């Protein structure tokens, strides 16, 4: 990274770009109502007016232009009354607008917006008799025109500033197809940013090293770019992704889904790793900011040099890349109805879920089954009724099924608002005159199983102490749980220290972990097709549920769980994703990997990583980086699904909590994404600190 990029990064981290922000959002409700616009028309109007209201900002050295000046709030297009009428009896996903899917950005780069517009016009002519189709296509066309006009404003300003180099590019893209790497990056910067302006969020960047590589390759071959100049362009593009991200919605700052996916195989099965794969990793390491968040697809054959490079990113504490194993993911997708070519083209969504760019209108996280709630209810009812252990497992099975049914039933009334602009970058929308909200080739829902390690540990404790050792009476355990172990400290110590725990490769607890996920898979499969024509995909992520389930939250359908039979106190968070219970002392990474290897990832295929923290003291020398790379490859060879490694030092985290002003750039992985530690809510900070307590004794 050259000095210019260093300085740009510093300015963006200092928030200089915020000084050009407009204080107030625009208002368009009145005109929408006066003109009696339809929903798609209102969305198109929103895009148009947002683009018109954007003020042109070009820094003197900018190579890639666009800085958002509009505030975070997206102006309403319906009055609260009309909105209530429109959505009555329907379920909205999170904030409402379509989120967390991935466009096929190659459509933009290959055709340009003018090319896409021509496709829309052709379809409009062919299907002119269908008013709904015409309405959609006109809306898509209106929004594309708005984006092109915004680019024209940028181009004029660049000319006026004497920046003919930049003006030349802005006069071509995004209207025209991109011909160079620089044009491709600029085109993507505009069109990606406008998706956010329209209120859609968790807007992924897809297989960046695949769709961008042809442009870089031809530039390098023709001598238009050197590796160094290409790296600088890429660095600026990555830094620019951090300019506006505080305006993007998320549960916590940093949870914005600006992910990209590298590596893996091509749709025809060839190796997809190329020079750009390496370049992205090098530049991301040097830029060292929280966006874009990188996923790397690997397999048993992935070479150690590439994994050593990615370990460098882990070493400096970025919390990415996250690894997904093609050898496991692709067959599981195919077994569940994905075409092989599409499965080979998968990317990772905002956090972990496997989705197909341009072909998936999937809602990959409609909610989480609370394993702790299912187990807790089953244990309380079963123990009180004097049942045997197997009967209690039956109760868990039923509870999990009921939770899955409740989640899926709620989403049977899912309402996805139209997104005519986002549709431009999806396969078949313009070609068939259908908005993305009406569905794409894949329309599945994902449900995660959260808190699995704690739940399995609780079952294991009951099995061992009550039914095998007979060293604990059911009533004793029940009252200890009711009293939050107050006055039962000895019992709590016993549960914590002598219980069988997931993460130690202990067959007892691990078998129960496997049972929980088998219950989830069976419940999802048993549900059958949803009204949107898709299936339910069971997964292993936990997002914010590890906190919400423990302390209750408006976003949860499941009840808060009090003290649990594994010795966990009321209010303490559960394990995040696939990780041992926060209080469990485990032997180390090998045993933990072995425990989680037992899950059947052929059936549990929505994604959700084994999450491991390595002390930064591990990475003392180049040899240790290589050994960590070897561990990652072993992970792939032995058939795990997804892995997320962090490097952190406890002392640093404690100091950052006490003196945030000294640690503004400290990056941590939270659940499926990286954020700045000092910008997290205290309970998330504490959970991260708790995950690290064991490394120093």
């Amino acid at each position, binding site marked *: 990274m050259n000095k210019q990029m260093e300085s740009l990064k510093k300015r963006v981290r200092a928030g200089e770009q915020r000084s050009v922000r407009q204080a107030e959002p625009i208002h368009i409700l009145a005109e929408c109502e006066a003109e009696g616009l339809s929903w798609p028309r209102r969305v198109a109007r929103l895009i148009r007016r947002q683009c018109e209201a954007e003020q042109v900002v070009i820094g003197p050295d900018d190579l890639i232009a666009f800085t958002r000046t509009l505030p975070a709030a997206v102006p309403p297009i319906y009055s609260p009354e009309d909105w209530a009428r429109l959505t009555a009896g329907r379920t909205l996903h999170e904030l409402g607008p379509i989120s967390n899917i991935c466009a096929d950005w190659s459509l933009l780069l290959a055709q340009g917006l003018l090319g896409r517009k021509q496709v829309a016009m052709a379809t409009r002519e062919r299907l002119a008799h269908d008013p709904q189709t015409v309405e959609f296509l006109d809306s898509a066309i209106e929004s594309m025109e708005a984006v092109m006009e915004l680019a024209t404003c940028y181009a004029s300003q660049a000319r006026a500033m004497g920046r003919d180099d930049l003006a030349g590019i802005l006069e071509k893209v995004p209207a025209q197809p991109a011909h160079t790497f620089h044009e491709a990056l600029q085109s993507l910067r505009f069109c990606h940013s406008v998706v956010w302006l329209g209120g859609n969020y968790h807007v992924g960047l897809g297989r960046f090293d695949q769709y961008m590589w042809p442009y870089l390759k031809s530039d390098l071959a023709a001598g238009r770019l050197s590796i160094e100049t290409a790296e600088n362009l890429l660095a600026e593009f990555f830094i620019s992704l951090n300019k506006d991200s505080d305006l993007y919605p998320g549960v916590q700052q940093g949870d914005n889904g600006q992910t990209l996916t590298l590596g893996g195989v091509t749709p025809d099965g060839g190796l997809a790793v190329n020079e750009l794969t390496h370049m992205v990793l090098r530049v991301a390491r040097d830029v060292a900011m929280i966006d874009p968040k990188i996923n790397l697809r690997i397999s048993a054959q992935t070479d150690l040099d590439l994994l050593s490079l990615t370990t460098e990113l882990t070493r400096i504490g970025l919390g990415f890349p996250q690894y997904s194993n093609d050898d496991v993911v692709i067959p599981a997708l195919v077994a569940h109805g994905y075409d092989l070519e599409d499965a080979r083209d998968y990317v990772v969504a905002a956090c972990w879920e496997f989705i197909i760019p341009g072909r998936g209108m999937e809602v990959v996280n409609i909610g989480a089954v609370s394993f702790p709630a299912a187990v807790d209810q089953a244990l309380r009812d079963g123990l009180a009724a004097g049942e045997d252990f197997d009967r209690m497992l039956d109760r868990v099975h039923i509870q999990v099924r009921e939770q899955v049914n409740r989640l899926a039933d709620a989403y049977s009334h899912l309402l996805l608002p139209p997104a005519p602009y986002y549709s431009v970058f999806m396969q078949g929308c313009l070609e068939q005159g259908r908005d993305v909200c009406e569905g794409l080739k894949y329309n599945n829902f994902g449900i995660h199983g959260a808190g699995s390690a704690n739940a399995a540990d609780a079952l294991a404790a009951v099995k061992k102490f009550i039914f095998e050792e007979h060293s604990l009476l059911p009533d004793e355990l029940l009252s200890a749980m009711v009293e939050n172990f107050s006055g039962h400290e000895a019992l709590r110590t016993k549960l914590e220290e002598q219980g069988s725990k997931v993460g130690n490769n202990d067959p007892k607890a691990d078998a129960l972990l496997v049972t929980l996920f088998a219950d989830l898979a069976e419940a999802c499969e048993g549900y059958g097709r949803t009204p949107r024509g898709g299936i339910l995909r069971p997964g292993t992520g936990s997002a914010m549920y590890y906190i919400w389930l423990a302390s209750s939250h408006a976003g949860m359908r499941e009840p808060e769980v009090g003290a649990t039979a594994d010795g966990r106190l009321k209010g303490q968070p559960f394990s995040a994703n696939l990780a041992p219970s926060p209080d469990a002392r485990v032997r180390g990474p090998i045993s933990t990997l072995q425990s989680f290897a037992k899950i059947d990832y052929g059936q549990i295929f929505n994604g959700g990583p084994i999450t491991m923290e390595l002390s930064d003291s591990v990475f003392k020398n180049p040899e240790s980086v290589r050994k960590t790379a070897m561990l990652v490859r072993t992970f792939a*060879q032995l058939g795990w699904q997804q892995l997320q490694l962090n490097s952190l030092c406890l002392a640093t985290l404690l100091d950052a909590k006490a003196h945030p002003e000294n640690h503004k750039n400290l990056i941590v992985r939270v659940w499926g994404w990286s954020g700045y530690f000092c910008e997290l809510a205290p309970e998330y900070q504490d959970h991260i600190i708790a995950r690290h307590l064991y490394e120093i004794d």
Partner: protein
Amino acid sequence: MTSGIVFDIKEFTIHDGPGIRTTVFMKGCPLSCTWCHNPEGQSRQPQVIRSLAGERLAGQRYAAAELAALLNEQANILRANEGGITFSGGEPLLQADFVAEVIDLLDDVHVLLDTSGYGNPVDFHSLVGRSDLIYFDLKLIDREMHRHYTGCDNDMILNNLKLLSGSGKPFVIRVPLVPGVTDTDENLAAIAETVRGLPGLLYVDLLPYNMAAGSKYEYAGMEFKPDYDEKRPLNVNALLFEQCGVKVQVE
């Protein structure tokens, strides 16, 4: 069947030998080096460790077959990653019969013995014969200084070093550099002179003093009393080894 006492089993210990390893820390050590950074390894008795993470008991008794079974669960993974099992401590020689029995029960996996060299020659011979690689500590050549800083004579250590070089097994000499104690030119030159030309010697590994050495004492309910100046700059004089034709690396 013998049993032994272990104060920790650590996985992914990538600084304890080639590849990815799991290290078994045997509890109990005949030496009491003033710079010891594993104080819980000194006593043979289990002891409570109180840290930020709460309390735990360091020191668990294992039957040989039980420990071997635990380690064998990982043998495939360790082998695939050019690694294996390391026996460290404390001092493995102090529980030589137990360690020997565990090694005999291990699947085909690389074994590294990390030893102070202080133990009787029969035990030493027994464990060296069962290991693929030996990490052998040499701290001080001067007999009096050795006694002062470790509480023991170094006769047995130097004698075992001779046995080791005649065993045909590859070994690494590890020298903990303690400021003003082991890092003097005089001591380093004496070590270089002692090891030069020994058959089987791969290289000498100089281990710079770790300022965190004393950090575990409080947790273990012990007192850290270094009788040297921790902050004194280290003399990392690798040249003294190179001059003797001894390969040297600094960790």
